[in-house]
């Protein structure tokens, strides 16, 4: 039994050393100022708490070794100690000190990280100095609106690195929560009111992580809660600006092939009622009831989770209910194989940039 425990703790220790998670996902590999600060708090509190655990364990082990009832002591009555004011004061004061050590950075960081006073700061031309992104969470997909740039995209968030980006977040149906673990803590998207916070994406760390970070919904929102992922492309400012211009100038490309042309026709008959294919932000939020598909050709994932392949696009169009149960598109469709091919080809041709 004892050996078992020893092996187990060795195994656990080894596991801890070998794994901190993936750089594009783990809070233990912070890739931005916010996550960094939070990680430092984690280290500080873990340190303090380890100290507490060590003290308790030492006393505990001594007690168990020294004060077990031994053979021949069956009738021994130990002294009935009432208490000790000195000791009791000590173990009241020391925890208070430890908590103060934690409380000071806690309060400071709460105000630091919650500071969105610069969000709407404008330069002398009346333009906002910082990038602001409006996030809208809907049942199992994310919409990202760039109000100052006049563009909308969904599922793939594109951001410039090494600058403060302010987010305004809201949900359109039920409550969700917006979380990019490697970049910073989450914030809820409420149905009642807009929340705001900021994040910073570190350029170097983004390179290490392959410029893609994983984002997740962290609040239970229904059967497909686990699939409500999104991806973040963190690129240098210049590249971001190019992307913005490309999106602003995005015009639906003329289909290059007959198949794509056929796909376009099907799309305009069946899909366009809900899905926009222009990145231009011309409709009110309530009218944007499904993900914007402009730049779909550059998506990193299908439906936020599946690898970006033609087969997966076809599967998603035909049977979305199998992939994300409870999604609001439809459960299944009955397109023919030919129609699916056409749709997929058309969608994959929608690219703002090559």
């Amino acid at each position, binding site marked *: *039994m004892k050996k*078992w425990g020893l092996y*187990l703790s060795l195994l656990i220790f080894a*596991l*801890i050393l070998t794994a901190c*998670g993936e750089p594009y*996902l*783990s*809070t*233990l590999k912070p890739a931005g100022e916010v996550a960094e600060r*939070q990680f430092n*708090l*984690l280290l500080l*509190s*873990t340190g303090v*708490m380890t100290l*507490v*655990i060590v003290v*308790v364990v030492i006393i*505990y082990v001594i*007690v168990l070794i020294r*004060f077990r*009832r031994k053979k021949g002591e069956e009738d*021994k009555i*130990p*002294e009935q*100690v*009432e*208490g*000790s004011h000195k000791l*009791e004061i000590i*173990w009241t004061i020391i*925890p*208070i000190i430890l*908590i103060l050590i*934690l*409380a000071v950075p*806690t309060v400071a*960081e*709460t105000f630091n990280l919650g500071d969105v006073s610069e969000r709407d700061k404008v330069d002398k031309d009346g333009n906002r100095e910082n990038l602001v992104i409006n996030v809208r969470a809907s049942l199992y997909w994310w919409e990202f609106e760039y109000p100052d740039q006049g563009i909308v995209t969904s599922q793939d968030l594109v951001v410039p690195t090494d600058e403060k980006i302010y987010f305004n977040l809201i*949900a359109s149906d*039920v*409550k969700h*929560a917006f*979380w990019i673990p490697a970049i*910073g*803590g*989450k*914030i809820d998207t*409420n*149905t*009642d009111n807009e*929340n705001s916070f900021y994040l910073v994406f570190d350029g170097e760390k983004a390179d290490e992580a392959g410029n893609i970070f*994983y984002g997740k*919904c962290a*609040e*239970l929102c229904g*059967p497909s*809660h*686990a699939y409500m992922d999104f991806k973040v492309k963190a690129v240098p400012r210049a590249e971001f600006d190019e992307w913005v211009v490309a999106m602003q100038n995005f015009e639906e490309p003329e289909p290059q092939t007959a198949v794509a042309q056929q796909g376009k026709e099907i799309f305009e008959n069946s899909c366009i009622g809900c899905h926009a294919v222009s990145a231009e932000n011309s409709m009110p939020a309530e009218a944007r009831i499904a993900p914007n598909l402009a730049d779909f050709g550059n998506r990193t994932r299908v439906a936020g989770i599946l690898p970006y392949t033609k087969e997966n696009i076809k599967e998603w169009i035909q049977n979305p209910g199998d992939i994300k149960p409870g999604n609001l598109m439809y459960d299944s469709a009955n397109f023919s194989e030919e129609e699916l091919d056409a749709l997929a080809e058309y969608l994959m041709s929608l690219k703002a940039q090559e």
Partner: protein
Amino acid sequence: MSTIAVRKSFLSTVWEYLTTVDHKKIAHLYLGAGGFFFLLGGLEALFIRIQLMKPQNNFVNEQLFNELMTMHGTTMIFLAAMPLLFAYMNAVVPLQIGARDVAFPFLNALGFWLFFWGGIFLNLSWFLGGAPDAGWTSYASLSLASEGHGIDFYTLGIQISGFGTLMSGINFLATIITMRAPGMSFMRMPLFTWTTFIASSLILMAFPPLTISVFYLIFDRLFNSAIFDVTLGGNTIIWEHFFWIFGHPEVYILILPAFGIFSEIIPTFSRKRLFGYSSMVFATILIGFLGFMVWAHHMFTTGLGNVANAIFAVATMAIAVPTGIKIFNWLLTMWGGSIKITVPMIWALGFIPSFVMGGVTGVMQGIAPLDYQLHDTYFIVAHFHYVIIGGVVFAIFAAAHFYWPKMFGKMLSEKLGYVTFAFFFVGFHMTFFVQHFLGLMGMPRRVATFLPGQGLDLYNFISSLGAILMTIGVIVLLVNIVITSMSKQQVANDPWGDGRTIEWALPSPPPYYNFKQLPLVRGQDTWWLEKMEGNKELPPAEPLQDIHMPKGSILPFFIALGLFIAGFGAMYNPLNQVGDGHPMGTVVLIFGLAMTFGTMLLRSLRDDLGYYIPKEELEDDDAKGGKVS
């Protein structure tokens, strides 16, 4: 013995339990029903872990997973942990304070039957169109959007059983205030009685907000109101506030009695009085008080603002101080003692490090900016299982072994007890320790599955293996209980030999009137005191006289049943948002309420004067060695 006779006696036993108002029998009922729901909740947990054993597993589908996860949490909190603690409170507290029963025996029975019918109502959802699926917290936007009647089973079931809990809370408060034996001052009360007292006052203050918010959800879903309907001006954050104004004290409602249980077990098996009794009492009161000041730490990411987050963060961390006092007092109780390892004691020894682990991660989550990362991830799942299993469930198992002889007159097998502990303890740490890291590595909680390639596979697999070990531990405990129940042992008053409080001075199990003569309490650790002076029994505080006893009654059963029926009526009333209402629903609702209020009226109109056990009969009992036929 003919089969007919056996059946007859079986039926009369059933009738006895249906009508009982005796706190010791009600304890049996709570233990049985709470144990049943505990197994149910455990099974649901096992299914959850099987589903999460590997990425993209297909053991259950996403909808069913959400139902399992919701029912696991709801069942464990409302239908398992609390009732099991109520079982021990009922069994022990009146004895510990030297009372013949609780202040309101009728209400005590009513509390049980409300809990029972509420629990049955909630679980019938499995057979009537699907269980609730919005998590045990049932946040309003999701619970309003939830299809089918799952959420209605949740709200109505919680409401019915919640009424029962509230009654039991009031009952224990009144009992402890008015029914203490002569000499049993507040500062002589055993710690388990103290923690019951504080936990009951938390119930009294915390359940009404739950009642109200659950009523809002019932009205919104079933009667068209608009409290949480954002399009009509409603606000879903109100639900979050009320739920956690209830939900956070609820954690202390569970953990304080657990602290009490360990505060009985540790001194008993260290043969030493509790170190720092008064500071233990004050720490308990302080925890109860602070418990109401910290609810918003469950809502750090809701967007309440920096000031609110900072205040609630610091208040949360402050709770660590009284909790720390308790831990050190237990350690110092053992220091210098003569520690005997028994099954209850080994659970207590397992509790200390496990609970400290859960406590420190709690402080970490109190650090609001850090909690933005930890909130709603597997880190929090690990944290509250460390607290609730490592604290409450360990206490329930410890108390099962500790008080089994007092409740049933038989000792559970020590050997099997150690086997249970070994499997459960190792399995528990295996399941939940790695979950801290899963959360830090980016795994949100309440996910029906996870995708491969995110570095989460291995720890999830380890976690699921641990769950299987825990299951084995529980099965061994069940075997132990069956074997023990079939054995023919009869233990003495103080089977552990080192009992300190009044209950150990009574026969095991005690006679139905508990005390022939109410005892005179001469100090803290009453029974230990008398033993040390060489006395074989407690000094009486009154001459032998007739004992006034309450009469049994079937009415509590029917009052609760009426609400159970009314619940179905409300659910299928014509206004319900699911759209499957029927005018008959209203009729059933009225019928059920009429049954409840009619039975209450009946209770009010028929005098319940109780009855007297004549002195002579008590003397007669004496001749038979104190045993009651």
